[in-house]
């Protein structure tokens, strides 16, 4: 456990604690290099690229945007609901959300 957590603490973007999941999505959905991915997400969130790793900025912003937060907030979007909001925010399609929509009647 010391190895992955050491990397997360040393270099990582802290996932849904900040905006690491959003930057990773842009790398994988659009092949964006790190600077481009950060620029894209920062513009969509109307924050600076430094803010993307700043828990102070991202905690409240994520809750306001309904894209999932690291603490368990009753009633807040989680799972598929949060990812559907991420789709709109980043203008991308997420496979699990597509599958979910296709199952609705």
């Amino acid at each position, binding site marked *: 456990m010391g*190895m992955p957590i050491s990397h997360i603490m040393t*270099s990582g973007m*802290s996932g*849904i604690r900040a905006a690491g999941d959003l930057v990773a999505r842009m790398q994988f959905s659009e092949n964006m290099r790190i600077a481009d991915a950060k620029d894209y997400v920062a513009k969509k969130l109307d924050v600076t690229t430094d803010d993307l790793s700043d828990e102070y900025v991202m905690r409240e912003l994520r809750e306001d945007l309904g894209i999932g937060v690291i603490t368990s907030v009753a009633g807040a979007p989680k799972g598929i609901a949060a990812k559907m909001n991420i789709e709109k925010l980043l203008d991308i399609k997420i*496979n699990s959300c597509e599958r979910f929509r296709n199952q609705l009647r």
Partner: protein
Amino acid sequence: MATEYKLRMGDGKRIFMTKEQIMADLKEGMADAADLGSIPDISADELDKLFDILTMPSRMVGVELGKEVPVTHDIGTLRIDGDQGNSGVGIPSSRLVGIMMHERAFGADTMELGHIDYSYKPAKPVIAQEMQTMEVVQQNTIVPMFYGAMPNMGLYYTPDGPFENPGDLMKAFKIEEARKSMEDSAKHLTRDIVWIMQRMMASGADGVNFDTVGAAGDGDMYASLHAIEALRKQYPDIYIESGMAGELMLGMHGEMEYDGVTLAGLWPHQQAPLAAKAGANVFGPVVNTNTSKSGAWNLGRAVTFIKQAVKDSPIPCHVNMGMGVGGIPMLETPTIDAVSRASKAMVEIAGVDGI
């Protein structure tokens, strides 16, 4: 008396080195990479920065604010409930619980689901279980979620698989028969990976992590690249990460090609364009750790190789930095001082897009 700094050997053992010794090892490691890969040295300023990172007095170091990068994981959740063979800590829990712990407790940027044997082939008999688990994971998580496994073409050879073991054939000087066995195995491996991922995509997976591509040599890489190509064609939006196994593609077959390029003997910077051509979104370059050399030698070498891979890659590079690669000591419990220094060096000097 010259000041001595606390460093690590490639096996993790504490050693003490002077500035002159550290700089000499950094240069020697760098020169080894430059010679083997026919690539440029890193600059004198970058060597000085490596020295600064290695000799920082803090137990743990970190990247400069604003330089953070996403982290992807191989094996992922199996670290929680897996056994020692998976570097697991044996905490009884489901894979879903392990994934949620990584997302909500550890701050992982991405995560993955994987079979406990962590190869594609053993997932086939339990594919419905894997699909059901992926569905439940997707309903409960937010971060990009992959299905991860090793291509592991060795599982297709006797006694584990249907094709005669090329090692046995080569020992009997049956070279053509050995090559034919690898070619047949590669076709089955490609078919199996695509079959599994078709089902995982139907279950909502974001994509696939090809972990340790080429572990069984060039046939393993050939099969993986063709699987990536087929998946990209069928699923234009699938997330694909292609990670290397070792720093040099072993030519077990010797004549296998992709896009007109012979796979045997390729270094990380030469593999990256092929992964991109096949359709991967992210490439995971590897540089092996030499346990008999110092951390300075290993990090100088690894950063030199990876910097070139980042430069030559048309797609983002998430460098492999597990136990025994990327300047990390070859140790089951790699020390935090060594891991954090290697991690910082890869981001700030090699310029990786992720880890």
